[in-house]
């Protein structure tokens, strides 16, 4: 399978199975796009002659050379490559690999089910996840870390994300849990990677210093322009939070040496023109940026409309152009979804099996309950067990284990499947009522982001 598209003056051909990317001229673009429509060389040649009748430089020798190049790419499995490794299909590999994945390697620790902001679009309902306010007791957190170590098998790298609600509202417990895990590293042979997501209100020099020592990555929530941010991200007293958090975030990033952070914004029906928010964050001195479409009920006033989605796709294209323009300049910035490491990125197995929610990755509530991931927390249908007895809802775990991209015909037929691994189970569930369903709008936006990311690579890589 291939995906051939034109963007900003470039013709790009992605070979789905191998991941190969080819930047081609107009003649090669048409030849490759129609390659499988013809059964013989003469028919292909006639089609090109007809399409480029006015191009006098397109000689028989030129066409023969082009066909030889295409045939060479096919032979070397960089074009129209089969989805096979040896005698096994990608689908068989995915099933085998998924069956073998029995270890847990990452936890999302909900250290706080309360928040000092009341963001209108919060999927966690002001951080409470449809329940009561709660803070994770230290003993529950320690038990969760012990559970992770015990369930991680031979895996060396373990990940813990401190999440909420607002995790800084339970900061002493966060610090103690980091110390507890560090003390366990040498005896267990494990290496912990900690991350933190915060709205920034409670940041101070002590928090920043500890984070800079211990957190491999921090995610800082800012929606961009002041008016946009303050309209939806207000304190419990109804005040905007922009003026409080921006100076704190600027200090944080500066003291962090400008590394290992992401400014993370959400765009909604209020701002499908989110590029202005990204550029605003760049103007504030932030360069590691991420803006995400809102996750909410389709009936919500914040939900993206069909018209919004078209606007967002145009914004993604303009964003790529802006990033190319700024490349190498002091005002250059990165965008999370455009950072694809094509040379040293994830292997085939990772691309076939995805994020591991419900199997390798679980969320832990303040009460020690286990859920498939943070977006399922609070829905009793998705409770998997607890950190004392482990996963007791084996049927649910097996349902997530079987949540393969090959179970959806739309995914099997999709050129982007090895970039998303079938997408987010929670998004699919909230859009369709089943983790095996499809969040079609999300797919549409994802594919546009991949197209733009590959275009950026093409202008940098040639």
């Amino acid at each position, binding site marked *: 399978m291939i995906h051939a598209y034109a963007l900003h003056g470039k013709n790009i051909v992605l070979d789905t199975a191998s991941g*190969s990317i080819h930047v081609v001229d107009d003649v090669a673009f048409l030849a490759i796009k129609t390659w499988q429509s013809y059964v013989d060389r003469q028919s292909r040649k006639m089609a090109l002659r007809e399409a480029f009748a006015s191009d006098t430089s397109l000689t028989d020798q030129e066409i023969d050379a082009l066909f030889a190049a295409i045939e060479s790419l096919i032979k070397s499995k960089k074009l129209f490559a089969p989805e096979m490794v040896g005698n096994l299909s990608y689908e068989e590999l995915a099933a085998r690999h998924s069956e073998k994945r029995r270890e847990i390697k990452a936890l999302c620790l909900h250290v706080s089910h309360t928040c000092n902001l009341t963001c209108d679009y919060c999927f966690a309902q002001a951080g409470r996840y449809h329940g009561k306010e709660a803070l994770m007791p230290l003993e529950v957190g320690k038990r969760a870390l012990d559970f992770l170590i015990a369930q991680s098998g031979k895996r060396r790298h373990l990940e813990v994300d401190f999440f909420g609600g607002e995790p800084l509202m339970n900061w002493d417990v966060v610090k103690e849990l980091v110390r507890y895990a560090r003390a366990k590293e040498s005896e267990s042979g494990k290496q912990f990677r900690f991350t933190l997501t915060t709205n920034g209100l409670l940041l101070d020099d002590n928090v920043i210093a500890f984070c800079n020592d211990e957190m491999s990555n921090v995610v800082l929530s800012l929606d961009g322009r002041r008016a946009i941010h303050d309209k939806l991200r207000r304190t419990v007293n109804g005040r905007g939070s922009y003026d409080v958090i921006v100076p704190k975030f600027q200090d944080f990033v500066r003291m962090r040496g400008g590394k290992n952070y992401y400014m993370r914004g959400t765009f909604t029906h209020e701002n499908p023109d989110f590029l202005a928010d990204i550029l605003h964050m760049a103007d504030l001195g932030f360069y590691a940026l991420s803006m995400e479409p809102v996750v909410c009920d389709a009936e919500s006033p914040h939900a993206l409309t069909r018209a919004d989605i078209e606007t967002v796709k145009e914004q993604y294209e303009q964003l790529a152009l802006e990033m190319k323009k700024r490349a190498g300049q002091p005002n250059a910035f990165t965008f999370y979804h455009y950072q694809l490491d094509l040379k040293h990125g994830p292997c085939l*197995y990772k691309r076939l099996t995805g994020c591991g929610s419900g199997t390798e990755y679980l969320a832990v509530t303040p009460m020690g309950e286990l859920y498939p991931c943070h977006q399922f927390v609070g829905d009793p249908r998705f409770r998997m067990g607890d950190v004392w007895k482990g996963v007791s809802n084996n049927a649910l775990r097996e349902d997530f284990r079987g949540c393969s991209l090959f179970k959806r015909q739309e995914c099997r037929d999709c050129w982007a499947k090895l970039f998303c691994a079938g997408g987010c189970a929670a998004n699919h569930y909230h859009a369709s009522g089943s983790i095996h369903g499809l969040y079609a709008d999300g797919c549409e936006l994802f594919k546009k982001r991949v197209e733009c990311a590959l275009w950026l690579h093409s202008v940098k890589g040639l």
Partner: protein
Amino acid sequence: NRIETIEVRDLAQSCAEGGCGECQTSCCVANQPCEQEAENNG
């Protein structure tokens, strides 16, 4: 040239069977670094 190919990781040849499993959890797969590749490349 009519066709310029960008060098990428060969997916079908990329790993021992099953992969090493040490990579980061996506949560967003293609954005994630590969631990093995990172170690191989210093």
